[in-house]
């Protein structure tokens, strides 16, 4: 599904390298987790994959189903099936959540050359999906993320994911700032989207989210590199011993 080879990234503004050669191969239908200390480059990886400005790719490649995504505009990547659940979802005052969702769904359809979703159909689908995530009609009407609690913002990210039905989902610290109940709700939302084909890259600092979203593969990232990959037991190792053992081992 997603092939990342020797990805090297530095900041556009200053000569600072953040990703120093990342290799990742995500097979369709699998859940991969990336764990790592703060500042290791996890968010940068997710931003570069989804096309945020301010970064310069100095080497390497990233292909989604064989298509070179690094040469695409962010909206083209989204239409191609990539989705990023933001670590810090952005507030957009004055734009209703519903308007935003519908614009996003129909923009992607248009970019893919598919017919737009009718207002009626959209309403039906969004209501059903919102209900599963305990998002009420009020929250759908409110401006995008404005006045939402941390948990509401993250649930709203998962709702967008459910509506857009991407092939490749990247979740950046979706668990941060959530209490246990909210985290379970988010995990349920994610698990409901697992269908054997959809692929997930779950970025997290702590192991606890992975109790609810079971990964197939766990990667440890440090200082802009994947330093170790393994099964779910790797996450437990981090949980018990922290990152220090692993970091020493790699140095």
């Amino acid at each position, binding site marked *: 599904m997603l092939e990342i080879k020797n990805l090297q990234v530095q900041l556009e503004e200053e000569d600072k390298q953040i990703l120093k050669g990342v290799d990742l191969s995500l097979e369709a239908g699998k859940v991969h987790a990336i764990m790592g200390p703060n500042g290791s480059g996890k968010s940068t990886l997710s931003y570069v994959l989804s096309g945020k400005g301010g970064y310069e790719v100095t080497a390497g490649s990233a292909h989604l189903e064989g298509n070179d995504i690094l040469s695409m505009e*962010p909206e083209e*990547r*989204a239409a191609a099936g990539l989705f990023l659940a933001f670590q810090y979802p952005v507030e957009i*005052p004055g*734009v209703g959540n519903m308007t935003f969702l519908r614009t996003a769904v129909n*923009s992607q359809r248009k970019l893919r050359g598919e017919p737009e979703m009718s207002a009626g159909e959209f309403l039906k689908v969004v209501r059903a999906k919102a209900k599963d995530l305990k998002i009420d009609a009020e929250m759908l009407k409110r*401006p995008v993320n404005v006045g939402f609690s941390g948990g509401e913002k993250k649930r709203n990210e998962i709702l967008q994911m459910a509506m857009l039905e991407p092939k490749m989902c990247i979740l950046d610290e979706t668990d941060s700032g959530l209490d246990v109940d909210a985290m379970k709700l988010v995990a349920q939302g994610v698990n409901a989207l697992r269908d054997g084909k959809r692929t997930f890259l779950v970025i997290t600092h702590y192991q606890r989210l992975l109790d609810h979203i079971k990964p197939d593969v766990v990667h440890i990232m440090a200082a802009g590199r994947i330093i170790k990959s393994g099964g779910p037991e790797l996450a437990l190792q981090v949980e018990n011993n922290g990152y220090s053992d692993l970091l020493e081992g790699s140095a």
Partner: protein
Amino acid sequence: MVLPSSEAATRSAMHDDGLISSPGAWAKEVRQSAAERAQNQGLPERRDEYWKYTRPDFFVQESVTLEAQVSPKIQIFNNQLKAEILFENAVLAAETLPKVANCSIESLDDAADLDLHWVSDIYGKLELAGQYPVRRSLAALNTAKASQGVLVHATGQVSDPIRIHAVCAGRTDAIIHHVVKVDAGASVTLIETGQYGARCNVVMEVEVADTGHFHHIRVQDDHEIHALTHIFARIGADSTFKSFTMTSGGKMTRNECILELIGDNSAVSVAGACLGDNDFHHDDTVFITHDAVNCESRQVFKKVLRNGAVGVFQGKILVKAGAQKTDGYQISQSLLLDEDSQFLAKPELEIYADDVACSHGSTCGAIDEQALFYLRSRGIPEAKAVDLLTLSFMAQAIEEIEDSKISAAILNHLTDTLEAR
């Protein structure tokens, strides 16, 4: 209408017997003194401080240089409102004056014959009061010369909005003067759409009695227009006055709003959302005088500019001695979509009372890259994402509109206008 020198202007106004004499004795006197006022004060010039950011040339020069576009691409409120008044080529189509419950609507042209005393108490009087401390000679000239306009007198609650729609062609030079009176306990909403002329000088005088409520909505979406508008309003106690203007067309527009709060516990709001592109200059000039206790005034102006468009804001809150518990809020913000556009702002506070809360802020910024990326990452193309952020930016101004049906219509109109460009 307007002439290169104030002397010539006055001469023309005085000698134009058709205009001076037709609406009767009271009008003749008012018009003559307005013409003298304009002459004594002189017409605005480029060096005037009050015209520092906007050149008065187009408004004072003799000839009209632009052709009016016959009809705008996108229309708003068409066939939606029960009460509609039509102006064609700067002349009121008197047969269109609607019958509205709790409200009398007449033509300025007929004012003398109708013996409408309430009109003579307002016509030119509020304009005169608004000549100090800043002279507004073009408004005085309007009082002297205008023969066309509507006289709206709300005597009770007027349930549906009244719309004035104007269409024109060619180089029409429009001088329009409306007079509105809202009685105690009465309320009325007036909507102005369309274009009176290729060049317009529009004055609206509004008297809101104690416990009266007046709402004004204006859509300026035509092209090739030079418009100068003045609203002069005097607001009594326990009443409201709200004016909202959406501007998305025209080459040169200056909207002045001069409000005087003379009764306690009242609330006023003047707001605007402006979408500027290319050869576009838009000026909001507001002067609010608090001369009563416990009144709230709000000024909320948002401008989104690109391709060299220019936005201007001059807003003043004057709190007179004794106007305690005044709550004055003023915000003027612009979103510049490129480096060619500019925003010039002059916010002013002048306060002579001690127990007041006044705040003002003026900002000028570029698009929020983080928000733009967020929208694009959801598959929304850049241009559409910029449109959404434009609507987001304007939301605070549109929220000043009280009637949710009208604000929804304005929002749709803005969305359509953005999509069409």
